[in-house]
């Protein structure tokens, strides 16, 4: 989601599921929507019914391809080349939406004179540390400190001209040769999609893990963001970039940032050099000298201080910097993702592990290494509704339990329908769930387990003390009700935020303890506490739980359903929606009117900022209010590997050289160097590209679905999909048991010989690709009868922005048993 945040200001799906019906063109790339988001596909087909073109670009012909207008196969890991070619096509043929590009993006900004791009590297590269010094990735500013612009877009250092030059290298011939897509197919997609670069057409993109699971994952999305901005497809009904996320509440768990780098609400996790609250806030609060930029993150201190108050309540005071010191600090420039954690665990540095509702022994790349790493644990706490391969690692394949020291707990949890609480879908709808039945036996909700564990820990520190005890003993932790059960409403309200003292606002007295109806009322002086500012407004001032709403009204006819549940932020259904109107606030497409400025107010969806449209030079604001400069980023200096995207080969690829430059792989990726982290690129031993995926009938590692007989019956066992041509070459028959091997491990499975994988012509040679699901594990079906993790094959490497592992492109061989 790093790319979306950098491009538009927020890292989430921009539109929502029902909105897909409003599109004129839907590009499904990096997603297998029909299989993994089957109900999303309902809305895609609704657009198709109305005449929309539906395009699927994917290495493999899938159930999605079967229902699209056409399918274009491309080699895994070459999306940037494919999309870079589209940018080139848009620029060369003047297909961009000029009014939009000029006013709502940084196209006209002038980039620093020291910035350059040469042979695959941007200015400022530090080869030793594999990192960029971004000093030249900046804009020239005028005497007021406002970025200089050239509204003719002719300045050679304007973002527009630099972009044009950068992507001019992505010619049809070059792109076709890298991706293995025919020129005819490339042109077909480019033409149809770029036809949406007019005011009354909407194009949308649906992606999922097919884009994020690459060493260039974030830049895949960045490239599409550039296309959507050039075509004016952001902020409009039927447009946007729609991240179809893979878990029921991955939006919520991300919003609440169970992530090393962020605190709830995408606040930044402090690093060690920021040793005071002042320094931290200064660093995190952007400043804009442009009076027309709302620069909404100028409010950052209010969100952050309110968060600290929600943790430590009365103990967080102005005098102790609201407990800032008690927060852990990461070392500057160091990452602590799952891959890093298992690397440290492998080295014996991580000794205790909470694994909640997950099966990391299957889901983490290079699972042989992960399983080995777990043997170093002193203790493991699992919380789940079913047992899984992580919790039983101590008696996994080839493991002797009598040699494993780890003390293990497996705590039974309530299933989703056995507890009350809210869940956020990809479209940011926060929906309330009710408890239908009590879980059986000793099972209780995960939240309750966690509250109780922490309560016990807190008691120990209160009694015994210990290093850094303040953070724990001062923690507000009263989330059990009188019966000793998790008080879900109390937690939900703590997240929403409340006033910590009596306040007078606009002449009205607000009582201490009242719920805060919007994050607009949060304060940086300790008078408000808010567990997650973006969720502020999920309760009304009157106490109404808006997440429970079930109103079915749809006044715009666009499927916004404003009275169904609550959508963050402030019930806005399409974010950046002010960009659906011209600078005077008139909708670009009157047929799909998402929003309109009536002279004194916005009508339609909840506007992205209450201010008048930007033509009002006095009070008007630019539409991308979460960006420092108020406009969206064609030039995105926040990215690790460059402000523009560039094609690099996957860590393991069939090519010895990157056809675009001397930089074979993403120059900013972190290389893991443990003895089990071996790689083999362009090797005769592993000649075939492999990609991994899920299927409709299973979910993720299958940790929930393999235990269900109806689903297991439909998809019983690990398989590898192999094209007919390759199967013939290798003498492999459909249904035969074979083995897939990589430099790291092997996976016995059943061959599924199919017409749906075709070889690619890449740089003059034939490249075969195969694919495997990652839904299986040794524990169940019992005795490994369903096969084991596909991640025995995948490498420990990931995108430098997000550390999403490269599950989608690596090299293997297929061998007969």
């Amino acid at each position, binding site marked *: 989601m790093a790319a979306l945040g950098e491009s538009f200001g927020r890292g989430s799906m921009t539109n929502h599921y029902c909105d897909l019906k409003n599109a004129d063109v839907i590009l499904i790339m990096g997603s297998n929507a029909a299989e993994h988001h089957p109900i999303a596909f309902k809305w895609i087909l609704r657009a198709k019914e109305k005449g929309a073109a539906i395009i699927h670009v994917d290495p493999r012909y899938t159930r999605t391809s079967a229902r699209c207008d056409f399918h274009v196969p491309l080699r895994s890991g070459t999306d940037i080349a494919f999309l870079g070619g589209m940018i080139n096509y848009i620029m060369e043929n003047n297909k961009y939406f000029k009014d939009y590009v000029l006013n709502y993006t940084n196209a006209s900004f002038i980039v620093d004179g020291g910035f350059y791009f040469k042979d695959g590297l941007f200015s400022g590269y530090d080869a030793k540390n594999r990192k960029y010094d971004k000093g030249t990735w900046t804009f020239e500013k005028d005497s007021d400190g406002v970025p200089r612009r050239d509204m003719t877009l002719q300045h050679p250092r304007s973002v527009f001209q630099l972009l044009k030059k950068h992507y001019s290298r992505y010619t049809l011939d070059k792109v076709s040769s890298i991706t293995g897509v025919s020129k005819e197919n490339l042109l077909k997609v480019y033409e149809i999609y770029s036809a949406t670069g007019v005011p009354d057409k909407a194009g949308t993109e649906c992606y999922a893990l097919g884009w994020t699971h690459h060493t260039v994952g974030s830049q895949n999305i960045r490239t599409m963001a550039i296309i959507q901005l050039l075509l004016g497809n952001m902020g409009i009904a039927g447009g946007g970039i729609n991240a179809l996320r893979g878990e029921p509440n991955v939006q919520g768990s991300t919003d609440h940032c169970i992530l090393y780098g962020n605190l709830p609400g995408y606040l930044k996790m402090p690093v060690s050099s920021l040793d005071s609250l002042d320094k931290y806030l200064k660093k995190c609060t952007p400043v804009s000298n442009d009076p027309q930029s709302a620069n909404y993150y100028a409010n950052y201190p209010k969100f952050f201080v309110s968060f600290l108050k929600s943790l430590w309540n009365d103990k967080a005071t102005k005098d102790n910097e609201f407990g800032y010191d008690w927060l852990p600090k990461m070392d500057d420039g160091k990452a602590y993702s799952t891959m890093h954690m298992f690397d*440290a665990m492998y080295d014996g540095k991580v000794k205790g592990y909470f694994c909640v509702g997950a099966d990391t022994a299957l889901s983490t790349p290079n699972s042989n290494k992960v399983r080995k790493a777990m043997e170093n644990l002193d203790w493991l706490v699992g919380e789940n509704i079913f047992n899984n391969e992580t919790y039983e690692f101590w008696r996994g394949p080839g493991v002797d339990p009598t040699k494993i020291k780890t003390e293990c707990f497996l705590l039974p949890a309530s299933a989703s329908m056995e507890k009350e*609480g809210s869940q956020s879908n990809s479209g940011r709808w926060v929906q309330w769930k009710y408890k239908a039945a009590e879980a059986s036996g000793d099972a209780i909700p995960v939240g309750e387990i966690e509250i109780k564990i922490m309560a016990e820990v807190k008691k120990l520190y209160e009694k015994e003390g210990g290093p850094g005890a303040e953070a724990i003993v001062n923690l507000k932790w009263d989330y059990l009700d009188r019966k000793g059960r*998790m008080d879900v*409403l109390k937690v939900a309200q703590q997240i929403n935020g409340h006033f910590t003292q009596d306040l007078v606002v606009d002449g009205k007295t607000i009582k201490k303890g009242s719920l805060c109806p919007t994050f607009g009322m949060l304060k940086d002086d300790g008078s408000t506490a808010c567990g997650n500012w973006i969720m502020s407004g999920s309760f009304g001032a009157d106490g109404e739980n808006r997440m429970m709403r079930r109103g079915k009204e749809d006044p715009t006819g666009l499927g916004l359903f404003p009275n169904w549940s609550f959508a963050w932020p402030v019930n806005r259904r399409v974010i950046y929606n002010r960009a659906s109107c011209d600078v005077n606030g008139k909708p670009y497409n009157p047929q799909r009117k998402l929003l309109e400025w009536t002279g004194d107010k916005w009508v339609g969806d909840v506007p992205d900022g209450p201010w008048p449209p930007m033509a009002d030079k006095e009070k008007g604001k630019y539409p991308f209010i979460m960006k420092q400069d108020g406009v969206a980023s064609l030039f995105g200096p926040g990215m690790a590997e460059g402000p523009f995207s560039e094609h690099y080969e996957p860590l393991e690829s069939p090519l010895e050289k990157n056809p675009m430059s001397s930089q074979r792989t993403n120059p900013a990726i972190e290389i893991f160097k443990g003895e089990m982290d071996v790689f083999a690129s362009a090797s005769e031993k592993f000649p075939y590209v492999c990609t991994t995926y899920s299927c409709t009938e299973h979910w993720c590692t299958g940790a929930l679905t393999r235990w269900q007989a109806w689903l297991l019956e439909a998809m019983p066992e690990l398989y590898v999909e192999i094209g007919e041509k390759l199967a013939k070459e290798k003498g492999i028959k459909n249904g035969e048991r074979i083995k897939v091997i990589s430099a790291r491990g092997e996976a016995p499975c059943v061959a599924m010989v199919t017409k749906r994988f075709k070889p690619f012509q890449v740089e003059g040679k034939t490249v075969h690709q195969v694919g495997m699901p990652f839904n299986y594990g040794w524990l169940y079906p019992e005795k490994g009868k369903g096969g084991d993790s596909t991640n025995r094959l995948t490498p420990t490497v990931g995108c430098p922005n997000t550390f999403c592992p490269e599950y989608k492109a690596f090299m293997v061989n297929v061998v007969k048993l």
Partner: protein
Amino acid sequence: MDVTRRGFLTITGAVGSGIALSSLGINLNPTRAYAKELNKMNRVRTAKQVTTVCCYCSVGCGLICSVDGINGKIFNIEGDADHPINEGSLCAKGAGFFDLTEANKHRLTKVLYRKPYGTEWEEKDWDFALSRIARLVKDTRDKEFVKRNAKGELVNRCETIGHYGSSNVDNEECWIMSVKSRALGLVYIDHQARV
């Protein structure tokens, strides 16, 4: 502040009122009835109907659980026809949602403990697990708590404990875990966002 609307949400009609055969203009007055075959439908009609949200992909489809009024157990789950996204429909996983309830014999129902070098799980109670886990957490944390890093900067962190998950639990639970991990000083904190 007054929040009283909590508990169950009862749906009108049997399993949602959105789509019904009668909306097709079909008269369904029975001409013959076979009592035996009507059993399940009758149970649904008299059951408590509770709405929930699917726990798999991120579309957020609505479902309705039919709960037996006498034993309090769920006996049928199907799509919520009033839900604006799925309009009653479900994919294979959603349609099989019922198999996640206690009807599934593989569900965990006991606190399980495996002692160091043990070869089997043992059943334990919550008191044992909670106090033992708290002890392990504190001992591990205290032993190598990092007050200051190599540069001497104040970091107050615990690098020896990792937390993973979860994106398949509720928001309120996520927040609790996020906050708990920070209060403990953890830095290895992650969930399924990357996988």
